[in-house]
Each structure stands twice: as C-alpha cells, then as structure tokens.
C-alpha cells in the first residue's frame, strides 16, 4: 500500500498544473529553478574568498559554522511561510481500508520531500568543499550533519503543523529554545560561535555524539508527529464542519464601502481576501514578513550588496499585490459569470482592483520606509524604488497577464503561493517583471548619479503609475472583449 501511495505522490506531481504547461513555460521555470540553485552554489563557493578579503583576521569557516544557530533560525522562519505539510493529501484515503498508521508514515514521508529541506545543501556543499580539509576530516559527514540540523527544523515545523495541542506546544517550545540561541548569539557571541563550531566539528570529525543527538531528536519528534497524526485525523474533517462566525460589517469594511465609485468593488475584494483560506494566509503573513525582511536588510546590508537581490525585493515590495495579483481574474472567476452578466464596467472593475492593491502596497511602503529611515537610508531608497516599480510596471504586468486567465482556482486550498490557476502565458508575463528589473538595475548602477538603480527602477514604476488611467481603461476593454473566450475556455476544461 505504501508503494502505491508513493506512486500517487509521483503522479500527483507529474500531473500537477505545472506539467500541463507548454514546453517553453516548463523550460523557463526549470531555468529559474536552476538559476536560483546556481546562485546558492555560487554563494557557497565565493563566500570563503569574500569573507577572507573583508575580514582577513577571521577564518571564513568560523564565520559560517559559528553562525549555525542564526542560519537555522532563518531557515525555520522561512519555513513558516513556505513549507506546507501535506495533510490534505491523505483525506481521500481516510474512508478506505488503508491503515491510518500507513497514512501517517506517508504524510511524514511526503513532507520530507519538500525542497526547503535541501536548498541549504546547495550552499553548504561548495562551502564545505572550500573550507574543510578532506585529509583530516570528512566533508561528506559535514554535509550530512547540516542535513540533520535542517531535519530538526523540519521536525519542529511538522510538530507545529500537526493537529493536536500537545504537539503544537512542544513545537513552539522548541522554537523558543532556538530563538533563545539566536538571542544568546548577540549577547555572548564568542561562546555561542564556539559551541556552534564545536557542533560542526563533531560532524566532520565523525564523533558519534554529534550525529546521535540530532538524529535522536529527529526520530523522537517524528515519532510524536506520527502518533499525533493518527490520533488527530478527525481534525482534518472537523475543520471543514466548523461553522465560521458570520462576519458583520466592521470599521474597515464600512470605510472601504464608503469610497465613492470603487467602494463596492473594494469591499468585494477585501472580503475575497479575508474569507478564503489561501488569500487570507497571504494577507496576514506577507506584511509582517516584508517588514521583518526590511529590518534584516536595513541592519546588515548596503544598497550595493543588495542589488543582486532585486528579484526577491519585487516580491517583498508591494508584496501583497504581487502575491494576490498573480491570480487576478482567476479567483473571482468563480463569480466571473456573475460579473460578466451584470452591468459592471470592466474598466472600473480593473481600476478598482489596481487601486486596492496600490493602497495596500502604499501602506506597506510607508511602514517599510519608516523602519528603514532609521536603519539604513540607502536601503530605504532602494526599497522605495522597487516598490514603485512593483506597484507600477509589476502590477500592470500581472493585470495584463490576468486578462487571458480562464482557469479557476480552489480558494479553500491552504497554499498561499502556487501555480494552480495560473496559465502558462500569465506566468511567462509575470516573469517578465523579474527579468526586466535586472538590466534596469545594472544600467542604474552605471549611471553617474547617486542611487542610480533606485532612481531608474522607481522612475520606470512611476511612468506606469502616472499613466494608469490609460492602461487600466485599455485593460478593461481587453477584459470585456476576452470574457467570452475565457468563459468558453473554462467550460471546455
């Protein structure tokens, strides 16, 4: 049975929306993944040299292996936003004579295959090769050790994401312990760095205790996850049955509704975001994540160092819009028949949506700017430039691509970012904004003016912001003309 479940895993992946895209789209996505992996690899390879140049008194290995608590804390933080535990995948098997123990093991197995469990290895593999002498210690065991430490993070997240109060409490307790290690890193850096280094040395010198401790932790935590999953399978169904509190109109809703012309559309958009699992999680997590990221960037980096991360910043700056507009006209496609059959001017519909995300993007930019104004003024300008770029050209591309959107997505799904409901063409167009910013950034840095990159991307965004009435009108006309095709394409699917 387990073998069959594994084959289902494979089929699920092989038959996902991603593989239904055109060869070109697949190739492009594969290239982006390859590009990101190679970036990590290049970072791992070049970091020893860079650190050596910047801090000649310190050994690069000490910097990185001494900062393992921080690296793991960052990894754990990212997991909260990225890693989904595939609990819902087992629902179709619950009524069948498949032992719940098998399903629990399957759930654990599936969760280990998540790419987040492996990405650090692409950085550490070259870094270990560059910094560990194979004659006196084992590079492979060092890599294995890193994987085990990552595995602890994975197990903690599994605990938290497993139904049942007990496991959640234990998971959060372990998070607090890790956070304490992170805080201690700043209070007693030498000691923590030394301990962290000792842990890594235990791996490369093949000390049994070095492996036994993390391995035992993983086994113990996964065993708890296994037990708790069996015990709490009910909750997968219970959550569906629970009656949600009916939302009364609150201050925000009243405020949105009172806006002339666009108010009713804004109210609809707001409720769409708040009353669906997928969109709600994106809305709640992205704003704090963006601010946390801004603090992190503001504390540690200069504008020059951050230029290479422009792609990440597009997602962060104006992030809620970037998160949700990728699905523009696909999530409301569930009621698109309603919109299409009523006297609703598409131009106003498109513009209302644009203004809505512009408003949220503006609030986000304001908050980030306030933080960065104190921490790092250079970074504030770069963020402002990229935010304007996102809210101008970026949002335009998403909306423009959405016109061709005929798929409908399951809003009750939990993942906040995935390709479901995104057509190949839309995805390609969406990628454009990432690709365009790179040459802009390079040209900007070559300009003989301070903050050239921030200025150039900002101005590009501003051009679209200033001309938005024109392009939203055109998009409205296009959407109006396209609606018959989209509705027909959806029905054919």
């Amino acid at each position, binding site marked *: 049975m387990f073998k069959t479940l594994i084959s289902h895993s494979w089929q699920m992946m092989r038959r996902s929306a991603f593989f239904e895209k055109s060869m070109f789209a697949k190739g492009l996505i594969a290239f982006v993944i390859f590009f990101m992996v190679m970036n990590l690899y290049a970072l791992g390879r070049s970091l020893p040299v860079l650190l050596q140049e910047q801090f000649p008194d310190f050994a690069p290995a000490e910097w990185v292996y001494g900062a393992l608590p921080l690296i793991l804390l960052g990894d754990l933080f990212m997991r909260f936003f990225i890693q989904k535990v595939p609990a819902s995948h087992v629902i179709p098997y619950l009524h*069948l004579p498949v032992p719940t123990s098998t399903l629990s093991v399957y759930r654990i197995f599936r969760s280990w295959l998540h790419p987040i469990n492996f990405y650090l290895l692409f950085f550490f593999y070259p870094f270990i090769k560059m910094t560990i002498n194979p004659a006196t210690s084992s590079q492979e065991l060092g890599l294995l050790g890193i994987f085990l430490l990552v595995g602890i993070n994975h197990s903690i997240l599994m605990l938290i994401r497993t139904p049942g109060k007990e496991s959640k409490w234990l998971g959060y307790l372990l998070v607090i312990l890790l956070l304490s290690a992170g805080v201690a890193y700043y209070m007693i850096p030498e000691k923590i760095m030394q301990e962290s280094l000792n842990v890594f040395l235990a791996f490369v010198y093949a000390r049994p205790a070095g492996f036994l401790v993390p391995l035992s932790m993983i086994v113990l935590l996964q065993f708890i996850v296994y037990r708790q999953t069996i015990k709490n399978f*009910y909750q997968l169904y*219970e959550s569906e049955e629970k009656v949600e509190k009916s939302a009364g109109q609150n201050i925000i809703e009243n405020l949105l509704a009172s806006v002339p012309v666009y108010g009713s559309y804004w109210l609809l958009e707001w409720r769409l975001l708040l009353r669906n699992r997928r969109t709600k999680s994106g809305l709640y997590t992205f704003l704090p994540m963006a601010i946390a990221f801004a603090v992190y960037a503001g504390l540690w980096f200069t504008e020059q160092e951050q230029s290479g991360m422009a792609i990440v910043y597009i997602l962060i700056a104006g992030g809620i819009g970037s998160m949700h507009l990728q699905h523009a006209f696909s999530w409301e496609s569930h009621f698109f028949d309603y919109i299409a059959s009523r006297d609703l001017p598409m131009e106003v519909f498109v513009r209302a949506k644009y203004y809505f995300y512009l408003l949220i993007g503006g609030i986000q930019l304001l908050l980030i700017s306030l933080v960065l104004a104190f921490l790092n003024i250079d970074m504030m300008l770069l963020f402002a430039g990229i935010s304007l770029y996102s809210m101008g050209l970026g949002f335009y591309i998403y909306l423009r691509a959405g016109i061709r959107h005929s798929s409908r997505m399951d809003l009750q799904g939990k993942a906040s970012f995935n390709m479901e409901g995104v057509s190949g063409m839309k995805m390609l167009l969406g990628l454009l904004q990432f690709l365009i910013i790179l040459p802009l950034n390079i040209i900007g840095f070559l300009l003989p003016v301070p903050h050239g990159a921030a200025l150039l991307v900002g101005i590009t965004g501003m051009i679209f912001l200033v001309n938005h009435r024109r392009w939203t009108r055109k998009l409205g006309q296009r959407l109006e003309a396209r609606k018959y095709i989209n509705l027909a394409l959806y029905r054919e699917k």
Partner: protein
Amino acid sequence: MNIQIQQLQKQYSGQTVLDIPELDIARGELLGIVGNNGAGKTTMLRLALDLIEANEGHISIDGEKVNESTHWKRHTGSFLDEGFLIGFLTPEEYFHFNGEVYGMSPAQVDEGLELYKRFLGDEIVGTDKYIRQLSTGNKQKVGIVAAMVVNPSVLMLDEPFNFLDPSSQLIIRNILREVNQSRGTTMLISSHNINHLADICSRVILLEKGLIIKDIRPEVNGRLDEVERYFASQAEE
C-alpha cells in the same frame, strides 16, 4: 452487516447538530435519510465512517465500534463528496486503486465495472481525463461506482442523485435496489429526492435539527406521504 447507533451526539461550538439516542439498522436494510439542509444527514454519515469524532456515544458496524478499529472499512463502501476522490488519477486508475485496497485484482474490478457500464456512459472511462477534469455529475458517478464496485456489505452514499441527469438517476436507483436485494447489502442513503427513496428504501428516517423525528417503513405505509406532508408543512410555515 448490521449497524447500531447508541447515544450518539455531535456538537459544534456547543451547539448540538446530531443527537440520536438509539438506532438499529438491520442487515440488508436500505435506509433512506431525509431532512432539510443542516438537519444532520451528512454529519451522521461522517460519524458512521469515523471521519469526525462523536462527543458522546458511538456507532458500531457488526458489533465493531467504528472509532475503535478499522476492520469494518474492508466491508464498507462510501461516497460522500468530492473529497473522497483522487483528482489526479484517471477514473480507471481510481477504480483499480480502490479495488486494490479492498483486495481486488484489476481484472476483478474491470469485471465489476460491467454492471455500471450504462451508468458511467461514455464520457468517463477511456477518455484519458483526470477525475479533476470531469464535470460534477461525472465525478459523482465515479465516486458512486468506486464505492459500489468493491461489493461492500455496507454502503453509505450522501445525496447520490445530486448532479445526475434524469436517466442516470433512474439507472443508479435501479442498481441500488438490485444490489441491495441480490447481495443483501446494508445501505445508508441520504437524499432530498423523496420519490427515489420511496421507491427503493425499506426504511426512511426523517431528521430535523439533528433529531430523528420520524422512522417510516414505506412497504408498510405504501408511500412516503408522512414525509411529504412534513416538507409541505415546512414550506408553508
């Protein structure tokens, strides 16, 4: 196989949505469950399938409490909603997988499917479509057939006539009756279609706000007049 319900209670947020002190469903009985929306029909079936946890009491299938073992699943076929389907499989793959977990070979499953050939029509099998790409009505057919093709001793279906065209409704109604009579399958079927239930059920219970307010045997009473009168009175209120 017989089914017994004892002191069964289910609550959500302190509100009781199902309360059945006692209910015995005899082996080979075809029990229809009717009631307005929110009466507790689906909750009852979910409890019977051990998909949700009862606050009080229990349900037993052949003396085996459903929440204490899983042995009963080997003899129980069910389809409540789309969540039971595996969207990325083709219908054939799903039928075969389903057969596998019930200990049937693909050949046995294919042989069993013959009975449902007319019901399935020509839009489901052999079309190379994944289940997720089928229409709601065709998904419903796949779910029902998957539940029945394994020859279960107990069958539970939630609103099996929904989304089906009139011909398919009549076909499945006849199949249900035939299977119940020839194999002695105990069936629990919830539906809003009183006419279909009156035709095939040996017993019908009427749920209102989680309580059984009527327990009728159509073969004794002739038709489901009582049930029809109840719904008419509800509509007039």
